[in-house]
């Protein structure tokens, strides 16, 4: 096994099995780190907790719901306004968060009465919202409050409201992934099948494992609408609570982030016979293949192909403009879970960069299988990385850019590596054809920032170029470029607007496809 042992971790030998180098000749039967094991205390891991995996990652993107955490205020405060999952209803889910504010006396005497008061207060404060999710936290799990019972009581007393309970305290698993699992299973057990949807198309899907970061879901929804597909629900970005109760009526589950949401697809397949189709919304070729597969499934491949052709024609020249300029740039692809495999191969193929390392904070071995399978030879793969290992890897690999979270991004900045936010993005969306070009643009802007060039100069001893009053990114990126590429009248940089989501929300000119007679009757 080609394990990579970090110098900083020789004193914790169990870490050795958590990093591998994909050396020539290695495959998945010889090259896979351990994963999803309990974190080594004191290692300064980057993992979060199972509460945040349930509440913050999957629960809260639901947009028409009061999200209330049953516990002290900290859990809800800390997971509030730290993500960019937007919605088309004014971002209620980002703007409001609720905590039952459990105190010492409740720890001693129980907090069920407090919870009930809270539920009633919250509905009163937002009379237009009739749906609620309650998230258990460490404190209320340990004192054993029966949240389900209270929720049931309230639903009996207030027949127009519906409440979902998610029992996923912070300690319930090695990472946030434990919470993904718990909320998936709780939803399918308790809510799926409790609403019958209106079916308006012959082609009905659930779009699963998509959280509408900076509008990703809305970009994909546009494609589905152009194909005449009814998206019954999105689990959970920009998603509606009642739509998600009707998931059982879809013909197909289209799954993006298998890490966080494969459980519900698997259960829907077992319980309702709905097939699971894993797709990639990122990258021209993977996205085209994905749209084509969905089209094929419903026998409307031509509709998919029309979108693929139109979008590719429109955006490929811009993507290639960046590809020419990003060729050979070294990337550390250090996200949370699914992006390590969503992006690993396609950024190499379509942007010309080289992925020198992948890591996953909370993923399982299955994610590493996908990530390592998609990596090129030589890549360093790290499971549950920690602060010192990250720094050691940066020192060794000297990447040109890193895709990771906000705080690790600050670590990279200090050692002169520009960062892009892999979780929340810089200026997304990154899904869809235009979105993918925006990602390339953001990578380009990070690597070729004139300020980034200045950062590594030591004015006390380096030769300092004094001939320019300024540099543009293009002056830097195009210096070594072939004349034919530089002067190409086909390739062009991205010039789209900052906000491409609002126009999508206002768009009405979708084609109307007549329904098949038998289905419509």
């Amino acid at each position: 096994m080609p394990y990579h042992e970090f110098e900083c971790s020789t004193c914790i030998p169990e870490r050795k099995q958590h990093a591998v180098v994909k050396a020539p000749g290695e495959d998945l039967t010889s090259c896979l780190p351990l994963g999803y094991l309990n974190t080594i205390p004191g290692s300064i891991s980057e993992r979060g907790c199972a509460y945040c995996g349930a509440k913050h990652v999957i629960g809260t993107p639901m947009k028409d719901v009061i999200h209330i955490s049953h516990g002290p205020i900290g859990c809800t405060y800390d997971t509030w306004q730290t993500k960019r999952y937007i919605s088309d209803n004014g971002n209620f889910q980002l703007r409001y968060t609720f905590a039952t504010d459990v105190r010492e006396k409740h720890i001693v005497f129980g907090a069920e009465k407090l919870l009930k008061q809270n539920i009633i207060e919250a509905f009163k404060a937002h009379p237009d919202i009739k749906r609620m999710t309650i998230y258990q936290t460490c404190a209320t799990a340990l004192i054993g409050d029966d949240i389900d019972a209270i929720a049931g009581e309230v639903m009996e007393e207030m027949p127009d409201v519906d409440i979902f309970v998610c029992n996923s305290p912070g300690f319930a698993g090695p990472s946030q992934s434990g919470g993904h699992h718990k909320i998936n299973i709780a939803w399918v057990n308790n809510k799926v099948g409790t609403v019958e949807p209106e079916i308006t198309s012959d082609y009905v899907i659930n779009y699963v494992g998509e959280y509408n970061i900076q509008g990703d879901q809305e970009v994909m929804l546009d494609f589905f609408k152009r194909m005449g597909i009814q998206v019954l629900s999105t689990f959970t970005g920009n998603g509606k609570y009642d739509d998600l109760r009707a998931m059982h009526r879809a013909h197909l589950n289209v799954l993006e982030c298998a890490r966080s949401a494969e459980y519900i697809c698997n259960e829907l397949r077992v319980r309702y016979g709905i097939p699971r189709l894993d797709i990639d919304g990122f990258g021209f070729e993977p996205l085209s293949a994905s749209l084509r597969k969905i089209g094929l499934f419903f026998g409307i491949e031509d509709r998919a192909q029309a979108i693929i052709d139109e979008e590719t024609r429109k955006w490929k020249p811009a993507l290639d403009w960046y590809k020419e300029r990003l060729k050979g740039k070294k990337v550390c692809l250090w996200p949370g879970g699914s992006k390590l495999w969503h992006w690993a191969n396609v950024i190499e193929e379509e942007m010309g960069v080289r992925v020198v390392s992948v890591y996953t904070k909370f993923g399982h071995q299955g994610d590493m299988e996908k990530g390592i399978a998609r990596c090129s030879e030589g890549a360093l793969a790290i499971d549950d990385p920690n602060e010192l290992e990250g720094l050691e890897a940066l020192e060794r690999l000297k990447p040109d850019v890193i895709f990771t979270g906000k705080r690790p991004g600050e670590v990279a900045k200090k050692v002169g590596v520009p960062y892009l936010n892999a979780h929340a993005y810089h200026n997304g969306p990154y899904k869809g054809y235009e979105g993918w070009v925006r990602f390339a643009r953001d990578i380009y802007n990070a690597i070729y920032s004139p300020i980034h060039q200045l950062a590594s100069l030591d004015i006390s001893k380096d030769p300092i170029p004094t001939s320019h009053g300024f540099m543009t990114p293009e002056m830097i990126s195009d210096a070594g470029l072939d004349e034919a590429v530089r002067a190409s009248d086909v390739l062009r940089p991205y010039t789209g607007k900052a906000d491409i989501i609002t126009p999508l929300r206002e768009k009405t000119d979708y084609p109307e496809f007549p329904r098949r007679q038998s289905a419509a009757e």
Partner: protein
Amino acid sequence: MTDMTKDRVEQLIDYIMKKCLWQFHSRNWDRERQNKGILGMTTALLCDEPVDIEDPKERCYWVDAVVLADAYRTRYPWINTLSKDEIRELMAALHARLDHLTITGSLNAELTDKNY
């Protein structure tokens, strides 16, 4: 297996590994079903044989198979020169190799979990 078959299997495997996700469902029984279903369909498509896609589950295998078969024909033109028997033989070898990489030889300790 001849060296040439081995080499061809590796090319086909490489494509699946880099471009597909269906081979990495989270449990052994799923992976067996997926590999068999999709590679079976792909073999049929490459051999121009009819496939039964009435059942949604089969249809879902089929869509992955269509895209895979098309990619194989375009990226690996040598596949178009093979006889049906040769294709079947090659795909059987591919199936065995994929099962080895993703199931029997897999180091993923979660594959044998009883539940999702």
